[in-house]
């Protein structure tokens, strides 16, 4: 974790990221957003939307990102359903905890090493982990791809380990749904 190695790695990342698909995608999304906010579609709105989008992207260019994953319909559906269910369960769980009498129950902070080496996937996994039961991301170590989770409602070490497994399974589902080939291979290689 020396600074020199860090910089070298960052440079390598920059060189590796070739796909410039993000900028046009962002422009497209901004135009759609513009139309939705106006609430109707006219040629004039399309033109102004495009103009605003291009100016916004030119002024605030997005960092380049590797987008090499491909969405697989069935695993993606599986992930979507499980995610929706998890969000509901998480909400009910935390809501119940709010009414519990003893507010001095233990919590925990654990580090979960992830398989992925992609910034995009790391971001998405962290977002999802914050929304599903038990966990909240307190820190992300991008260099080693470790997310640190705060756990609530854990009574003992066993439950802590269960949460750790659950976080890893969540990542696995996401990689299967839309991970890059590299991540997929890394996932298979994981013991």
């Amino acid at each position, binding site marked *: 974790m020396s600074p020199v190695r860090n910089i070298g790695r960052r440079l390598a990342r920059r060189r590796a990221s070739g796909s410039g698909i993000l900028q046009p995608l962002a422009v497209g999304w901004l135009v759609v957003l513009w139309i939705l906010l106006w609430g109707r579609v006219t040629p004039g709105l399309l033109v102004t939307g495009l103009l605003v989008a291009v100016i916004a992207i030119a002024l605030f260019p997005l960092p380049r990102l590797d987008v090499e994953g491909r969405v697989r319909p069935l695993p993606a559906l599986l992930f979507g359903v499980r995610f929706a269910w998890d969000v509901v369960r998480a909400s009910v769980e935390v809501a119940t905890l709010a009414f519990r009498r003893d507010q001095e129950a233990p919590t925990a902070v654990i580090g979960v090493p992830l398989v992925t080496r992609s910034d995009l996937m790391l971001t998405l996994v962290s977002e999802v982990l914050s929304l599903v039961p038990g966990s909240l991301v307190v*820190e992300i170590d991008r260099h080693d791809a470790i997310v640190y989770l705060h756990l*609530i409602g854990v009574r003992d070490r066993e439950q802590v380990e269960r949460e750790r497994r659950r976080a890893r399974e969540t990542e696995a589902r996401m990689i299967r749904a839309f991970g890059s080939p590299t991540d997929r291979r890394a996932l298979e290689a994981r013991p």
Partner: protein
Amino acid sequence: MNDVLDVVSAVCLLLGAALSLAAGIGVLRFPDVLSRMHAASKPQVLGLLLVLIGVGLRLRTGFDITTLVLVAVFQLATAPVAAHMVGRSAYRTRRVRRDLLLVDELGERLDEAARRDGAGDAPPPAA
């Protein structure tokens, strides 16, 4: 048909309101900032989504619904990030009930980094 939709809408609105209330109570009652962020990021998000669904079922016009979808998308994308930012600064400024922690692997990691660098205060683990 419309009656059925109205009933479903009412149920969604009430459930959403109840979850938001629970989230509020959680924010009040939980012992430290990190626990409070759980309340602010989970029941609150689902509560809002349910309220949006309820409103959508009641309005039933295309562009109102797309606006509601936008609200939902932004909520799902931003709430975890906001909770993470607050949680991260809370942890780093030591506003954590350490006595309640069963395990603290981040603390171990930061201490280790501090020892290695020989500095008094723990630097971030490679941001």
